[in-house]
């Protein structure tokens, strides 16, 4: 099992390669979409690089549960419902959702994920696999 620093370093390399950002832009607090400029297609690229770097399989929707955002059952007036938020909490235990939960506008969801969340995601997957 790699250390937290090793996980962060590998994720940094993956993000630098996938997004063309500088090393020092990839900080734990940086958001993938807002700070690092990731677009939807980049997630395909990022997920592949993580799979390769950590020798793991990441099914679609596991890192970023985009299906919830297009599910009418979970959305009302452009915001996630309580049920939707519960679903997101269940699917993204690695992400800090409390700030978003105060005003869960769907359009802001994409900007939730931080580099630190991604590190926790990988750690959780590695520890459950090991």
């Amino acid at each position, binding site marked *: 099992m790699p250390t937290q620093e090793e996980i962060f370093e590998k994720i940094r390399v993956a993000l630098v*390669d*996938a997004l*063309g950002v500088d090393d020092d832009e990839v900080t734990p607090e940086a958001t993938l979409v807002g700070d690092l400029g990731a677009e939807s*297609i*980049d997630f*395909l*690229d990022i997920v*592949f690089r993580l799979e390769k770097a950590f020798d793991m399989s990441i099914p*679609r929707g596991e890192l970023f549960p985009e299906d919830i955002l297009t599910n009418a059952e979970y959305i009302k007036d452009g915001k996630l419902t309580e049920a939707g938020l519960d679903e997101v909490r269940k699917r993204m235990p690695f992400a800090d959702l409390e700030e978003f939960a105060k005003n869960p506008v769907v359009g802001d969801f994409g900007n939730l994920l931080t580099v630190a969340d991604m590190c926790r995601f990988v750690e959780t997957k590695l520890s459950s696999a090991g």
Partner: protein
Amino acid sequence: MRWYWIDRFIEFESGRRAKAVKAVSLAEEHLHDHFPEYPVMPHTLIIEGVAQTGGLLVAEHNAFAEKVILAKVSQAEFNGEAMPGDILTYTTDVEYIKKDGAMVVGTVHRGQELFGQMELVFAHLQTGHETRTLYEPQTFLKMMRMLGAYDIGHADDGSPLVEPAEMFD
């Protein structure tokens, strides 16, 4: 202007690797428009040629069931300019082909010289939709045929690549 940026496949190994050549000719209009009186082939059109090489490789492996589009150029580096008379060889190797997309690593050689390299990400449009038309697969198939993929290509098991004749019906 026809949007063909490769001239012929010289290697086509289903799901793994495709190689194509591009002969740069002064007869091509784009050489006269980029920098007047200094005919060089824009790198973007070289990337397009590598993307056509890799995109057809990905599409063929999916039996032309997906609409493969170039979604992202993750990286691209060139070491010079392509001039009229140059024969460029584009090699694309599959990194992965998944349900929602694919990635290939591409290189460009001029003779033995490594002239450029890149990483390309392709997306599959309308994955899972049952209502897609066959128009686009046929376009790809015709390109494959014209570029000689079925003359030199191999399937996964090493047998000769065969045209999916039923798709032309």
